[in-house]
């Protein structure tokens, strides 16, 4: 762990992850299995591609009219009796949560999975302010006990083996040492959480879809933990990014069909819970958070990254993600989508992420709302270079490359020299300073280039 904490770029973190090849294979196969389940599920929908296009267009409309939809949503939510808060950034969001809890003298809160609160680092903030937070989603609870970030937006503890979870439960929940039976561990967590649900007076959930037309919001879970928390507590706080809006209730029919098929290959989540108004004597709050989203909305090349419905399909399919693990992205949202969202928040800190891809394009193909993820990775690279966030040595080598390749004479000379070196002094290339050579041999140099062959063998 300490080795990981000292490194902050994807390539270094991925190298650490790859020190245990068997684990990489296990991680890769686990996520590939989910990708395969997704393939089976989507192939049962003959108009799948039309569904993706429809969702993409609905979100396009939302992003083009975001302010009016947000106002419509706010107005309807207020009519429904929900208190609406606006937060410009993570700091404001966290403070609003704290203020609500303080107003009610609550020092314990149960939370269902919300990637937005991970993005805002809410748990740390509340803990620092004396509030005890328990994550009720099982995967999220596991990473919380391990004091780690989720490594995946849908499967937060997908990087953990069941034996490691058994050990964690042994330490924190008193299960017998060495018991790694998933059924037993899940039941233990369930019993433990049951007590939490019954005693917590405040519950925080995320929001999957906020419907402008009705002022209601929809939360999708498989464990029912959001409902358990929200219905038992006196105060329900829902945190949502500004992009979670959909115009009308009927549009849910499109998004709910896409979301879970893309995420895990299920037809739909076990629970799609609609929250519209607080129960008598209880409070319901919505915090609408910007946190950099309106800046992204203003970036023409990157705005449609805000269409994301957080299904995680791009992570499951990404050959780099599967072999580097979510933590190598050093951001709450990892994988391809995280790599195009993060530089918007801090271009210097996340300058490495758009380069953590082969641009294979599989992410773009699985995306249920058709975000051109790999094209945006390419475009972020250009922006990052122009803003000076790449090592100076790289700039120098690129300029030399440009000079060589712009001149046929320089190119032919360099080519000849390169092949000569490979043939007669391979040690210059084949050494540990050349990262290619670590696991791969260089091609054997031919006696002549195609250009040289052509000159001898053709007259034109």
């Amino acid at each position, binding site marked *: 762990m300490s080795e990981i904490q000292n490194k902050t770029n994807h390539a270094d973190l991925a190298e650490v992850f790859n020190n245990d090849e068997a684990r990489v294979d296990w991680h890769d196969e686990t996520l590939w299995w989910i990708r395969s389940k997704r393939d089976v599920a989507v192939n049962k929908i003959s108009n799948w591609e039309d569904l993706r296009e429809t969702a993409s267009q609905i979100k396009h409309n939302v992003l083009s009219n975001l302010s009016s939809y947000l106002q419509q949503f706010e107005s309807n939510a207020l009519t429904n009796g929900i208190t609406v808060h606006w937060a410009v950034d993570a700091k404001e969001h966290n403070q609003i949560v704290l203020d609500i809890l303080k107003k009610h003298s609550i020092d314990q809160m149960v939370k269902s999975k919300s990637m937005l609160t991970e993005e805002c680092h809410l748990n740390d903030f509340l803990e620092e302010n004396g509030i005890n937070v328990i994550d009720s989603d099982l995967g999220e609870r596991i990473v919380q006990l391990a004091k780690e970030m989720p490594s995946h937006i849908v499967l937060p503890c997908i990087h953990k083996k069941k034996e490691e979870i058994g050990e964690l439960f042994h330490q924190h929940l008193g299960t017998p040492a060495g018991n790694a039976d998933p059924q037993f561990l899940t039941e233990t967590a369930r019993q433990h959480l049951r007590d939490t649900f019954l005693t917590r007076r405040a519950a925080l959930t995320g929001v999957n879809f906020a419907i402008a037309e009705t002022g209601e919001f929809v939360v999708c879970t498989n464990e029912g933990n959001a409902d358990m928390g929200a219905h038992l507590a006196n105060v329900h706080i829902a945190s949502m990014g500004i992009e979670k809006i959909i115009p009308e209730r009927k549009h849910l029919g499109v998004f709910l069909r896409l979301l879970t098929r893309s995420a895990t290959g299920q037809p739909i989540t076990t629970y799609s819970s609609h929250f519209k108004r607080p129960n008598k004597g209880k409070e319901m709050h919505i915090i609408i958070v910007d946190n950099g989203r309106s800046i992204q909305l203003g970036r023409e090349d990157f705005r449609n990254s805000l269409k994301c419905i957080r299904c995680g399909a791009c992570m499951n399919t990404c050959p780099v993600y599967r072999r580097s693990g979510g933590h190598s992205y050093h951001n709450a949202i990892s994988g391809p989508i995280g790599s195009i969202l993060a530089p918007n928040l801090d271009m210097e800190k996340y300058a490495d992420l758009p*380069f953590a891809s082969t641009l294979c394009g599989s992410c773009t193909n699985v995306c249920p709302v058709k975000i051109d993820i790999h094209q945006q990775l390419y475009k972020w690279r250009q922006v990052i270079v122009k803003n000076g966030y790449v090592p100076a040595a790289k700039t120098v080598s690129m300029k030399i490359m440009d000079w060589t390749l712009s001149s046929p004479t320089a190119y032919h000379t360099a080519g000849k020299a390169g092949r000569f070196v490979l043939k007669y002094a391979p040690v210059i290339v084949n050494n540990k300073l050349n990262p290619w050579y670590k696991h791969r041999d260089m091609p054997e140099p031919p006696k002549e280039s195609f250009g040289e062959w052509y000159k001898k063998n053709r007259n034109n």
Partner: protein
Amino acid sequence: MKVGLFIPCYVDQFYPGAAIACLQLLEKLGVDVVYPKNQTCCGQPMANSGFEHLTGGCNDLFIKNFSEFDYVVGPSGSCVLHLKEHLHNHDNPEIATTLSNKLYEFTSFLTDVLKVKTLPARFPHKVGVHQSCHGQRGLHLSQMTELVAPEFSKPGSLLNMVKDIELVHLSRKDECCGFGGTFCVAEEAVSSKMGKDRVEDHLHNGAEYITGVDMSCLMHMEGILHRQGSKVKVLHIAEILNGE
């Protein structure tokens, strides 16, 4: 029909056999082919590293070398895709657009323009086909496993014309090999692991040769095969289609 043969820089320098096979097969098919001698590189290595603004020289040179032809054909899905997406000329945008519309990856030129139905080739071996990502997902040379759409494959349809060839089934038929241009050195650990896994899929399923439309992916896998001491060879698809 006058065709300009575009040979990517690394094919020119390291894999002349692939380029010769392209030239010979196009000649066999009756095409008037010329290789402009002053060509260098499409500029993709710089562009994918974030330095697209430095590729002006490569763009100008490409336009100078290839504008006169009816078609331009190159044995690389990746380089062709890069040019189709990014070739531009500040002073004369039209000239770049016209040229990129005439630009074809080698196998799609055979299937879509020449409409080849038979080939005089024989290759009595077990062959694994690597679907290079840029050719497949970028140029749509074949159907992709992520999409719900009918099966097709331009390179596959050509390989099926080859006598006695046996195409092996892969467990992941369109996973990336991890080459990724400068990714292969910048992200060495993940890149080589991806390459190892891809090679393993072919080996496990009994391939004697691995082929594809992009020599760069094949160079990556060849580097791994050599290191492992494997006897399995890589061949550009043109070398198989031009065989015997």
